[in-house]
């Protein structure tokens, strides 16, 4: 199964409304050990992206537009990481009007690596990187959208559960030591809400 710029355009509408719905919850979660802006970050980012008319002939340009939207609209950590990830996807799809579902795992892996380079983060530090990495593994080798969706959801939920009681090791939450235990990382939670919104 393949997807093109039009599919992304529709996906953005779903992501944007999911971000709006999750806005207060994510602000609150981020506020527990951070500055409470994660909900705004995502809502503004997807709203700005949604306003773009993606070009139909080049997925690379489409992802670049999304990246630039996040750069413009929300430059907090998460926004910049999303922009970085989208830029990586842009590089991988440059010049092509379509891509295959089977490539998605690789695209996510490229995004993960670029985000690690930009944010100097490592896996295991309880951040969005861990959930992304889990989804990369869970979807590797799959190409059926339904199967991929189920695998991604399952991996995301499981990663949140796994990390909940661990110490935060990245971002603002890092400095709260013990009190970060028992709290979901807001970036992971944001990923989950976006995924749920995307997949319905």
């Amino acid at each position, binding site marked *: 199964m393949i997807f093109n710029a039009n599919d992304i355009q529709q996906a953005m509408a779903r992501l944007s409304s999911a971000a709006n719905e999750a806005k207060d919850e994510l602000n609150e979660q981020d506020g527990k050990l951070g500055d*409470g802006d994660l909900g*705004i*970050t995502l809502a503004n980012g997807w709203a700005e992206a949604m306003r773009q008319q993606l070009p139909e002939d080049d997925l690379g340009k489409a992802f670049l537009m999304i990246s630039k939207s996040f750069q413009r609209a929300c*430059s907090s*950590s998460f926004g910049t990481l999303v922009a*970085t990830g989208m830029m990586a996807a842009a590089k991988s799809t440059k010049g092509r009007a379509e891509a295959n579902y089977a490539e998605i795992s690789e695209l996510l892996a490229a995004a993960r690596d670029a985000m690690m380079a930009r944010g100097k983060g490592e896996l295991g530090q309880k951040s969005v990187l861990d959930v992304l990495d889990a989804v990369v593994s869970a979807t590797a080798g799959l190409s059926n959208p339904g199967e991929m969706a189920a695998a991604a959801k399952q991996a995301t939920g499981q990663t949140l559960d796994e990390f909940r009681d661990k110490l935060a090791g990245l971002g*603002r939450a890092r*400095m709260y030591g013990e009190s970060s235990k028992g709290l979901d990382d807001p970036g992971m939670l944001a990923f989950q809400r976006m995924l749920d919104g995307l997949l319905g």
Partner: protein
Amino acid sequence: MMKKILNDPASYVDEMLDGLTAVHPELYALPYPRVVSRASGAVNGKVGLVSGGGSGHLPIFAGYVGKGLLDAAAIGDVFASPSAEEMADCMRVAHGGAGVVRIYGNYGGDVMNFDMAGETVEFEDDIESTTVLLTDDVVSAKPEEASKRRGTGGMVYAFKIAGASAERMADLETVTRIGQKTADNCRSIGMALTPCTVPQAGKPTFELGADEMEMGMGLHGEPGIWRDKLKPADAITDEMMDRLLDDIPLASGDVCSILINSLGATPHEELYIMYRRARARLQDQGVRIAMPLVGRFATSMEMTGATVTICQLDDELESLLLSPCHCAFWTVMQ
């Protein structure tokens, strides 16, 4: 409900910058919507000094653009990083042909974006640039991980001292070295009593009991490290000084400056009461205080609370700290 005087939260930052430059057209210009520069522009042959970060901290960042201080600053939304593109524009505006130093506080978003910006201007404009990162907030990481600490009041010293060095036409390497030495010599700690409200969020950044204070509070309302019943000013100051002096032991004969900074609502009156005690502590140790700073130097809008920063000085840094500077918020006379 948010008790703020503003129009649309979405236009808060732009109207604020518009107002700032309208009040002081002789000092500030706005060459891009989110970039504040000196009214007179870049100085030919001088190392450019830039900073940047979220709004809501005046005089940090835009306020410190001025002679003997910064050349330009990139301003984000409230408590949010400017974009890499804005930072790149900021560096272009500050570039006088001798390279640019980025001096700012260690926050995830800011670092990622300023790094991106540095790569961009090197690639697109051949501008050589360096980074001086402030990591002065002692409670934000253990000494072994000091490089992960966030930056707060130490920025004020780094802007001033590196700014004076650049104004004396030192080269990129020297200004960077001096900025870094200043950053390495700063230690800060904060405490808060009441929160502030981010316009776009519309509600307070945290909650505290009516008789509580939060020690170790961050500049964006990040929760502190421990909560306590509100104590007398001297006890609060002692607790803060203890933490600072644990981290940077000062010996008799050493020289430092100290900044007693209001987060916004805490009035000067209370800062003076704190200074009295902080000074006594330093004098007890035989430490000489050079140019103490007491006032609103790095705020969180209308937050109630204070931060204390110690900046240890050698002869080189002291002379630069004492040299003249001028912006709307801080003038050191010849």
